[in-house]
């Protein structure tokens, strides 16, 4: 029994980080109807930024989070103007391919620079042990940061001028344009924000698990699942979806072989898509 509980708690902790990873994807998707297929590659960039930061300065990985946010935002704005701006409003295939090609470029450059060997960010925090089960400090810390960032994003979208502009553009681009909102600038800001979130989640994941240049793919797939569970363009939903995914994984593992988890995950994904195309948690749209 305690084994199941431990497994579920672990699921919640990791799920919060999944949720943060998905937040960037869902924000971009919801605001400009672009599924960012370079999401995984961007998560990996976040991982490497933290890696080089800690190995160069010896500083704690958590101190790097604000810097990762800032760098991610800047990178996102640049990416938007290079590859996304032209395909806004075009058929979905175009934006999928534009972002996918970006994915190839980032992964390709990353492979050339860092090979595909695994990297580690050494972080050690005291964990909590209960009856043989240990919850590591890094997991708890990552989950806490994820929740704080989710809350900050929620407040930003709700109560600040740029946040309101993003929401306005998301709900009706033409109307926003008519009201004098410079939609393209707002879109680039939203894209930058999405990329920044992806980078931060990558930074946090790097403190938990080893990673390679190719690690992003699996987190990207998980982000899709989370986004579909949580509903489009809904950061709060993404956090809930992430935790839901973590709990499902946690609940499943004591009863089935771990290798079955992906079947459960993707089965759930497809069924949710068909049954609730707008997401299970869509009702709580922020």
């Amino acid at each position, binding site marked *: 029994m305690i084994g199941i509980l431990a497994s579920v708690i672990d699921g919640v902790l990791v799920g919060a980080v999944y949720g943060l990873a998905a937040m960037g994807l869902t924000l971009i*998707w919801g605001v400009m*109807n672009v*599924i960012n297929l370079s999401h995984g590659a961007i998560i990996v960039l976040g991982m490497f930024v933290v890696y080089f930061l800690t190995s160069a300065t010896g500083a704690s990985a958590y101190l790097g989070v604000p810097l990762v946010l800032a760098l991610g935002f800047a990178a996102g704005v640049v990416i938007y103007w290079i*590859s996304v701006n*032209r*395909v806004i409003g*075009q*058929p*979905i*295939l*175009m934006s*999928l*391919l*534009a972002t*996918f*090609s*970006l*994915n*190839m*470029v980032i*992964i*390709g*450059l990353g*492979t*050339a620079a860092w090979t595909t060997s695994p990297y580690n960010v050494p972080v050690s925090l005291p964990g909590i042990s209960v009856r043989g089960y240990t919850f590591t400090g890094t997991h708890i810390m990552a989950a806490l940061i994820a929740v704080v960032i989710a809350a900050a994003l929620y407040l930003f979208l709700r109560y600040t001028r740029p946040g309101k502009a993003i929401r306005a553009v998301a709900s009706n681009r033409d109307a926003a344009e008519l009201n004098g909102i410079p939609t393209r600038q707002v879109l680039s800001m939203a894209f930058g924000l999405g990329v920044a979130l992806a980078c931060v989640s990558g930074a946090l994941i790097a403190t938990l698990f080893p990673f390679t240049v190719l690690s992003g*793919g699996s987190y990207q*797939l998980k982000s*899709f*699942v989370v986004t*579909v569970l949580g509903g489009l363009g809904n950061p709060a939903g993404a956090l809930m979806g992430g935790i839901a995914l973590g709990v499902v994984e946690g609940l499943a593992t004591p009863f089935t*072989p771990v*290798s*079955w988890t*992906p*079947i459960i*995950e*993707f*089965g759930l*994904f*497809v069924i949710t*898509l*068909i049954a609730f*195309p707008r997401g299970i948690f869509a009702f709580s749209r922020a």
Partner: protein
Amino acid sequence: MNESVSQAVAKAAAARPRHAFGEELLRQARRPFPWLVVAFTLVCGLVPYLADDVGLRESLLLAAVYVTLASNLNLMIGFAGYVNFGNIVFFGLGGYIGVYLATAWHVNLVLASLAAGILVGFLAYLFGLGILRLRGAFFALATIGVNEAIRAFVTNFEPWGGATGIYLSMDAYEPLGGPMNGLWICYFLLVAVMGLSLLLGYAIKTSKFGLGLLAIGQNEDAAAVLGVPTPRYKAIIYSVSGFFPAVAGSLYFFKSGIIEPTSAFDLTASIESIVMLMLGGAQTVTGPVIGAFLYEELRGYLLVSQTFSHFQLVLAGALLLIIVLFVPGGFMGWLHGRLPRLRRWLE
């Protein structure tokens, strides 16, 4: 003016005898394009054989597989406007079914491949019932989900060897006259599948069914109001677009001698076929051929080039981005724009 309207409508109303199927076939046979496809297929099949060039054969074999994938993908993406990101699932499943039948049950390769095609077509129809209700990006994601779920399932499916996959013993090539002969036979069959895929694409493009698909691809709701039976057409094309990739998968993995989940359900291969389609030009029959050959050449060159082998992904990605941003019609779109007359010759 009003008179002409009533006249036109009345004229259109006057019942005409329908063209019989045979007559339609005859009409198609008088057009140059199908013969171009046949000639191309023969050239592909015979040149490496006559030149006895195994290296050329291997390179053309991959190109033939790519053409088959891209051309069938075109049915979904180019015609029906449904972005199928998990298209490779047909190829992988077909490969598994074909290789399994050929090794465990000792079914003849051709029969096993046909069975794989039919079974996968049927499975696709069933999946389609579920996921074809989704539109746009949601459909694209669902196809990824289907591919990943099936990959995870096959990884755990022991009769198919789980994560290890199925290995062919060298005996498996004996019915084909040994491995060397077997490779040639697999090659000819794959080239034939490529030719048939192209003819299928052409037949659909020039048919009423194809017109209906194009209408769905442009605006599904409007198409339905115009009378296009959208659910049926979508289910049919999703199923049909799975047939030849499955046959090709069966032949390809038989030729390879091994099938395992990671290579059979490789999402990257799916996306690569989209890249080829875009490179050559969607909505055309020739586009996938040009795209596949160009891409295979490029990839092959980059892979073994000392200078670029580390940058192959970067270059391929940059190329794709340029196409998407500046030449969305691909090579054929560009060519047709330049030389509209060519439209009559190269579909």
